């Protein structure tokens, strides 16, 4: 049994290629919309500097406080910065921060989940009870506490995402590991004397992947929201970063006069979070719903 693929229970088998995932995502209108939105924002994040008509922090004093117009599509803020350019350039900021943070959270969650589920016993208890204690705190509260200790910086926000989401990912991974580790192919690998590393990552991990992909995409959308929320509370990234949450916070005190400076970044947060959520929902149906056989 060198290839675990053939020995996998059928309900855990992921679609064969990325193309088929995309095709299935686009088969349903809601997930098609979500995926389109997500891809559009990814495009913005990549090409933002080419599309933005003004520099990120360019302050044109004479144009300050202007309503949306042909020169400034989303208007300007109180310091004469082009809101359209900042919203576009903010896409990269928020997607990379929450994307990288989610990736790290998934990596560490997978590691802890595999170890905890596979070993069981006291180690499992220790890890899981510690994670439970982390989960007992609301995510935002935990994030604020951590940021208070770490100090406001981009790296701190990243650490916050990892700490807040690792337990959740670990729990999901662990639950799958628990159901898989007694299966014959794992037993077989163990009897064959394969290394622990190989058993965990080559035999067990593939079974975890579908659930993990869904969890990761959900975490990603929550991470976007968390990053924006922290920006809004003024404890995450520092100005003049184009973090949408921070832009909303800065625009808040001018809302009666410059509502556009608030509505556009707030709308961007809403749209991207909804988009990623719809996509995550679609992924769930593709990877789990369609094949679980219920």
């Amino acid at each position: 049994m060198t290839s675990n693929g053939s020995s996998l229970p059928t309900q855990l088998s992921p679609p064969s290629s990325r193309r088929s995932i995309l095709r299935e995502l686009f088969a349903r209108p809601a997930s098609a919309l979500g995926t389109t939105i997500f891809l559009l924002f990814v495009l913005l994040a990549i090409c933002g500097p080419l599309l933005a008509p003004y520099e990120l922090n360019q302050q044109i004093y004479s144009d300050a406080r202007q309503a949306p117009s042909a020169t400034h599509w989303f208007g300007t803020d109180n310091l004469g910065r082009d809101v359209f350019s900042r919203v576009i350039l903010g896409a990269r900021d928020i997607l990379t921060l929450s994307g990288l943070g989610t990736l790290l959270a998934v990596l560490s969650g997978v590691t802890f989940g595999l170890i905890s589920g596979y070993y069981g016993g006291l180690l499992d208890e220790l890890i899981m009870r510690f994670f439970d204690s982390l989960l007992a705190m609301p995510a935002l509260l935990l994030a604020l506490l951590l940021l208070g200790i770490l100090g406001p910086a981009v790296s701190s926000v990243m650490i916050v995402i990892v700490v807040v989401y690792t337990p959740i990912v670990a729990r999901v991974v662990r639950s799958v590991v628990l159901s898989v580790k007694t299966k014959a192919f794992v037993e077989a690998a163990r009897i064959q004397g394969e290394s622990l590393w190989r058993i965990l990552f080559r035999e067990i991990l593939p079974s975890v992947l579908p659930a993990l992909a869904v969890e990761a995409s959900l975490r990603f959308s929550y991470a976007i929201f968390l990053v924006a929320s922290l920006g809004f509370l003024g404890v995450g990234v520092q100005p003049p970063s184009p973090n949408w949450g921070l832009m909303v916070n800065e625009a808040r005190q001018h809302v009666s006069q410059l509502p556009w400076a608030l509505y556009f970044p707030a709308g961007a947060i809403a749209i991207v979070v909804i988009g990623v959520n719809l996509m995550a929902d679609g992924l769930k149906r593709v990877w789990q719903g369609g094949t679980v056989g219920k």
Partner: protein
Amino acid sequence: MKIFSETTFRLHKKRAVSLLLLITILALAACGGTTTNNTPAAPANTDTSSTNTTTETNMEEPAMSHKGVLRVAMQPVVNLDPIAISSDSEVLFANHVYDYLVDVDAQSNPVPRLASGWTISDDGLTYTFQLAEGVTWHDGSAFSAADVVWTFNRLRQTEGTATADLYANIANIEATGDLEVTFTLTNPNPFFLYDLSDNHALVLKDGTEDASTTFNGTGPFKVVSYTPEDRIVMEANETYFIPEQPKLAGLEIIFFNDDTAAIEALRGGQIDLAMRMSTSLFQSLQEEAGITTIDIPTNGFDLVRLRSDRAPGNDPRVIQALKLATDRDAILNVVQQGYGAVGNDSPIGPLYEAYHNPDAQPPARDVEAARALLAAAGYDESNPLQLTLHTPDTGNRPDLAAVLKEQWAEAGVEIELSVEPESVYYGDDGWLEVDLGITGWGSRPYPQFYLDVMLITDAKWNESHFADTEFDELAQTAGTTLDEAARVQAYYNIQDLLIDHGPVIIPYYFAQFGAISNQFDGFTLKAFAGRTDFRTISYTGE
């Protein structure tokens, strides 16, 4: 290195605590508090240990001469003991429950309050005050000179308070009659009357034990109830010693964490007066029916300061380059929307007409000259000057920081911003340690205050760590000479000196805003909003 990391850890622990507080506040209010132009002149006191209580006194039917209740929006109070007050709301509360011995009017002149008059000896060392007659405490007992002596002894003898420093020059306080008090000074102090009118110097009853929970004043209003985080309800003092005052039947201080919410409440008629608001909010009220808006110039300012006792600020060319790279007119127009006045890098602003030198102006913006100075100091494109600009998140300070970052970038200076909640910025005195910071300083009736606490060597809040013997001598002269011409000259020289090599940039002096319902008459806004006097406000509505 070890000390550094310990300090950092303490700072972060403090941050954590402050953030927990922030969360609590966020949970209580829909939105977090922000913004105003008016900070306490003393940096915010983040001590929250004072106990909050509710005090009930007997409600009395207001007499016919008192009419209407003024509802004022203010930020929540933390300290109510006059010795520890600092914010607008705390001072406003105390200013109406108690009386100052000497008050300061809207034109910054010392005026009688509990003191009906005074005489000053020729050597400027002995001040004798005659006290007003017919003054009674809210509990009915009579006011006497002993109360004044007790109050000022407490203020000057309580360790670790701002007033202990302020009144260190007092040699003796004595009741020289039932209604006469004599202060003897060690050295002449031409500003002593202003010092006596310090925000904390409200007269308490002799032997008051807990001034943070019992409010037995002589002032125009009596406390009916205090509900923490909600409001303070006060009623007119029927036996106030000044006839016909107060004109109102009652006063309510209603707490708002959020200025936007306060202004909405003003629009909706739930409050009658607001004195803390951003420029944007103030502008949005301009065409509002039924509301009168007032803006007055103040000497309050946002101070940008660079530590001068270590690199890079110990090279005078660096601060000079930053001054040259700063466009003050643009800052006033963009950050303050034109309200207030352009600053000249000295705390002696145009409001102090006699002492302000209109000809002392910082050099006009010259980015190339700034670059040249920086190059001479060893900073160029391959080795740019990099600094973190620390700033509290209140008022227009984050905007000021964002604008400075861009303006200085043109001269090749790379600035990182660190915007922190105000309680974190001032917590643990971290603001006194950082290299580059923005601090809000509230308006004061006389300029010597700023020099004494902010700029003389080893001053308590010498955030720029400025140590200049020439400056110290000038400040000493200005603060002690009884010769007015010599004082004016000293202040003029100080302005020149600060423009030449002072460690501070003062880009603007801000305006104080107020907005009041049309149903009230006789409102005079003061530069320090907390000292605004409601005794003469009358209700004209139905």
